[in-house]
C-alpha cells in the first residue's frame, strides 16, 4: 500500500533513483519531466516542514549594557524567501527518448538517478513496441497525421502472407546485426559469436530489430510487436510503410506504444493520475529492486543480448 511521507526533508532525500512512467501520447517527454517535477515540488511544499529559523539580535545603546534577544528570522519565512522546494532543486533525465506520438514505458532519473539513466542508455537494453498499422492507405509522414498520398486495395492480404513477409524482414535485420559487428562474415570468430546467440550493437546510431511478429490481424488493421535497440519513432513508421509495399499494397502507422524497456514493463509504469509523491517514491523503490536483481541491466558483461 502506498504511504504518504511524513516529512518534506526526508522525502526529498529519498527521491534519488529512477521512476517508470507511462507516457501519454501527444505529450512530449520534456513536458512529462516538467509535470513530474512540478508535482513533486507541489507535494513537498504541502508536507510538514522544518521550523522557522530564529535569529539573535543585540539591541540597545552601545555605551550602556546591551540586551540579547532571540527573535524569529523573517528572512526564513516561505512568504519572503519563496517556497522551500522549487523546480531547480531537481535534476531529471530520461534513459531513452520516446517520440511525441509514442506512448508507453518511459524511464526517468531523478536527482542521483540521472547517473543510472546514463548507464541504462549505454547498456542498450531492448525495447518492445506495439506498432498499430492500417492497410490500404499511405501518408507522406508514414503516420496518421500526414497527408494521404496513395490508396490501394488490400483484399489479397492474408494472415499467412503478412507472417511470411514479417519473418523475412526479421531475418534481414538479424543478418545486418552481424555485419555491423565489424567482423568478416566468413571467419571463425564470427561463427563463434553467432553460435552464442544474438549480439547487441556497438554504437547508438543504427537501429537493430531482434524480433518482429504480427500479433493481431483484422484487415485493414494489424498490430506488430517489435523488439529493437536504437530504434526511433520515424524508423518504426517506415517499417510499417515498407511492410505495406512488400505486401503489394500500402500501409501507414496508426499508433505506437512502448510496452517494455529492459525489465521495466507496463505493469510497473505509473499513469498520469498517479504522478504524486507517494506513488513516485513507491515506484522508485520497485525500480531499485529490479535494478538490484538484474545487474546486467546497468553493466552488461558480454556483447550478447541478455535482456
Amino acid at each position, binding site marked *: 500500500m502506498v504511504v504518504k511521507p511524513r516529512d518534506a526533508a526526508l522525502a526529498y532525500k529519498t527521491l534519488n533513483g529512477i521512476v517508470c512512467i507511462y507516457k501519454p501520447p501527444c505529450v512530449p517527454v520534456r513536458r512529462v519531466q516538467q509535470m513530474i517535477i512540478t508535482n513533486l515540488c507541489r507535494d513537498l511544499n504541502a508536507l510538514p516542514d522544518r521550523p522557522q529559523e530564529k535569529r539573535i539580535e543585540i539591541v540597545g545603546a552601545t555605551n550602556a549594557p546591551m540586551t540579547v534577544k532571540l527573535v524569529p528570522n523573517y528572512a526564513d519565512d516561505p512568504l519572503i*524567501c519563496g517556497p522551500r522546494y522549487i523546480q531547480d532543486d531537481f535534476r531529471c533525465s530520461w534513459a531513452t527518448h520516446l517520440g511525441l506520438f509514442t506512448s508507453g514505458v518511459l524511464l526517468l532519473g531523478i536527482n542521483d538517478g540521472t547517473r543510472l539513466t546514463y548507464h541504462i542508455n549505454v547498456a542498450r537494453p531492448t525495447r518492445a513496441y506495439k506498432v498499430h498499422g492500417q492497410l490500404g492507405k499511405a501518408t507522406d509522414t508514414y503516420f496518421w497525421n500526414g497527408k494521404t498520398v496513395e490508396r490501394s486495395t488490400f483484399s489479397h492480404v492474408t494472415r499467412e502472407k503478412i507472417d511470411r513477409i514479417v519473418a523475412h524482414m526479421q531475418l534481414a535485420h538479424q543478418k545486418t546485426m552481424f555485419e555491423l559487428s565489424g567482423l568478416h562474415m566468413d571467419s571463425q570468430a564470427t561463427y563463434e559469436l553467432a553460435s552464442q546467440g544474438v549480439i547487441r550493437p556497438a554504437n547508438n546510431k543504427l537501429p537493430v530489430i531482434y524480433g518482429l511478429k504480427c500479433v493481431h490481424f483484422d484487415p485493414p488493421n494489424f498490430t506488430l510487436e517489435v523488439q529493437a535497440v536504437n530504434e526511433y519513432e520515424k524508423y518504426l513508421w517506415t517499417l510499417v510503410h515498407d511492410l505495406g509495399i512488400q505486401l503489394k499494397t500500402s500501409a501507414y502507422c496508426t499508433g505506437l506504444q512502448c510496452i517494455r524497456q529492459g525489465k521495466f514493463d507496463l505493469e510497473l509504469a505509473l499513469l498520469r493520475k498517479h504522478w504524486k509523491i507517494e506513488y513516485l517514491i513507491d515506484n522508485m523503490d520497485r525500480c531499485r529492486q529490479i535494478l538490484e536483481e538484474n545487474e546486467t541491466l546497468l553493466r552488461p558483461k558480454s556483447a550478447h543480448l541478455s535482456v
Partner: protein
Amino acid sequence: MRCTLLKRFSVSKAINNARRYHSPDYNFDLTNHNLSVQQEQKNALQRTSEDLSIITSYFPKSFNFAAYVNSSNTLQTLLHLNVNLSKIEKKPFVAEKILKLNFEEENTKEILLFIKDYVGVEYIGHFLTKNPLILFETAEDLKIRVNYLESKKFQNESIRKIITQNPFWLMFSTIRIDKRLGYYQEKFKLCGSEVRYLATKQPNLITYNLHHIQTNSFVIKEEMGFNDNEVKELILKIPKVWMINQHSLLERFNYVHNVMKIPHEKVLHYPNILLCRNFKVKQRHIFLEKLGRAQYDATKENYVPLSALIEGTDQDFCRTYAKCLVDDFNTFLKTM
C-alpha cells in the same frame, strides 16, 4: 532552496524605509556623521563613549526582499498581512516601489482600511500579492470607482465579490470600466441585470484582454457554430469559456461534438464539459465505448450523463457508470 531573480533591484534609492534609525529626532546625514567621527578620533580601533546604535548597517544591493525584511517595518507589516513577497519581488520595478512605501502616510493607511473593508481580513494577503500597486493609487479614486458600481445598482454583496475575486478591478478608471460593461452589453445583447449578473459571476472577464475575448467570440460563434441566443446563454452560464485558450477550446468542442456526437443543445445544457481538459473526457469516453456503454441519450436506457465524464473520482465513475473495477480502467489506460 533559494529562489533566483533575474534582475537585481537597488535599494540605495529606496533605503529610507529599510534603514531604521532608533532615535526619531536623529536628523543628520549618515555620511556627515562618519566624517565627524573621523575628525575627532584618528584611529578606528579607539574606544568611544558615544551611542552608535543609531547607525544602521550598510545594505548592499540584493536580489530579494529577504535581505531587508528583518530591518524594514514596511516589509514586516506586509508579511503580517500574509502578503507573498516572494512573488512580488519577481517584478523588480514593483519591488522598488514597495520598499519606498510608508504605512504612516494617510493615503496608504486609508487604502489599506478600504481594502480590508471590502475584501475581508483573510483575503487581504492574497489581494495584495496579486495587485501590490493598488497601494499607490489615491484613496479618492478607489472610492469613486466603488461609487460608480453603486450608481449602476450593484448590490453591496456583489461589489464585495467583484473586488475580492478580481484584485485588478479597482485599478481601472470608471471610464474604462464603463466602456467594458458597455462592450459586453452590446456584444452579447444583455439587459442591465444580466450585465450585473455577468460582472458578479466572473469579474475577471470584464477586465480581460479584449482581443482574446474577440477571438474566442469568433471561435464560439463561427467555428463552433452556436447562434446568438445560445452564445448569450453560454456566457451567462460559464463566462470562463471566453478566457481559455482558443485552440484548446476548439479541440475540446471538436471532440465532444464530432467524435462523441453530442449536439449543440446538449453541450449547452451541460457546458462545463468545455472546461475540462480533453484527455480526461477522451479516456472515459473511449472506455465507455469499448464497454458498449457510451450512451448519452437521456430518452434511452443505460443513460450516461455528460457530467459523469468530468466529475468525480475514477472509482466513482467506474462503480456508477462503467460498472467495473477501477483496476480494469487503469489497465485500459495503459493501452492508450
